[in-house]
């Protein structure tokens, strides 16, 4: 089974995202910030990462830059999932190596649509 790492400092968001993405046939791992997420990735690289931007310790953008520099770090599909919705910020995330981008609030249809666009389902 494919794994999706859900990275968000909100436990509620992680829970909502987990329910939706489990239904798409993924096993879910959770991390509350970029540092925790990096530890996960170094242990077992997931197929997909749903990534919040603003988090304590290490934010999503910093995590993404470090991830893409890791060995095997280019393999996961990374989908940002954040309240940031300014085009300049979105471009910044894409330039840093994000594959897709979700603007919060999201629902099941949006996650499904973005996973399909990314070839994940």
């Amino acid at each position: 089974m494919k794994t999706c790492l859900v990275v968000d400092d909100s436990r509620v968001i992680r829970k909502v995202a987990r329910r939706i993405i489990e239904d798409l046939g993924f096993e879910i791992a959770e991390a509350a910030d970029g540092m925790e997420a990096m530890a996960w990735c170094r242990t077992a690289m997931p197929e997909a990462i749903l990534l919040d931007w603003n988090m304590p310790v290490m934010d999503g953008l910093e995590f993404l830059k470090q991830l893409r520099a890791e060995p095997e770090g280019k393999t996961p599909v990374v989908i940002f999932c954040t309240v940031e919705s300014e085009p300049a910020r979105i471009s910044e995330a894409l330039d840093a190596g994000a594959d897709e981008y979700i603007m919060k609030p999201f629902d099941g249809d949006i996650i499904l649509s973005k996973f399909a666009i990314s070839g994940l389902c």
Partner: protein
Amino acid sequence: MRIEDAEALRNLVQSRSGVVIDPAKTYLVETRLGPLARREGFPSHDELLAAMRAKRDDRLIWAVTEAMTSSETAFFRDRDTFDAIRQSILPKFAGRTTPVKIWSAACAGGQEPYSLAMMLDDEAARLDGAAVELFASDLSEACLEKARSGLYSQFEVQRGLPIRSLIRHFSKQGEMWRISAGLMAKVRWRRINLLADLAPLGRFDMIFCRYVVGSFDAATRRRVIGQLKALLTDDGYLVLGQDETAGEMEGLHPVGDYPGIYTRHAPQQGAAAA
């Protein structure tokens, strides 16, 4: 809602638009007509329907028909249909000296014609200079008005639209996103009821009529598909929804393994192997 009222409403919608409303879905009436009733100043959909019957006000009748038949949609709905067109159909138009005419025949909120406009812009190289004329129509004036505005909510631009297409083709306006003026100018809009005589519209190289005929009764479906077929150029394509079939129509042949795509000419089989 009384059973007679529900039946009268179903008959009205069917005679005006061809759309058959499943009696089991009477619950839709309240959610579809509630907002319209509020806009028109009625306490609820019951009073709205009563006023419509009493006054026989054509504008109100159409507003009700539109509210009952409009459906939600997404950008690049059926991604593999768009992939098939991009890879297998657009190249056939490459370098043509007369404009390629494309009609989005039930464009709802405009996501389909704008998806086509984006695709044609992104794939200009495949067309090798061929000009494209993009027409879009819908039964609903409200839908056309929305489509013409080119404005979409954050939810709408996240259904089917890749983020790079959003960044490339839209700009942010407050909480909404607006498609670029360049793409908006590429689409010509018109209100068209598919039950009317379509012959005056001329001929098209591609007609998109997706997720519409499925809601018609069998006789209406045959008549509408027959009309659309007659508007296709000799090597034109009709694109239906992926679970919709033109199977019972004489003279329309499925294209490859692409569900919902039909052409008038039977594709030559084994020609390459001969």
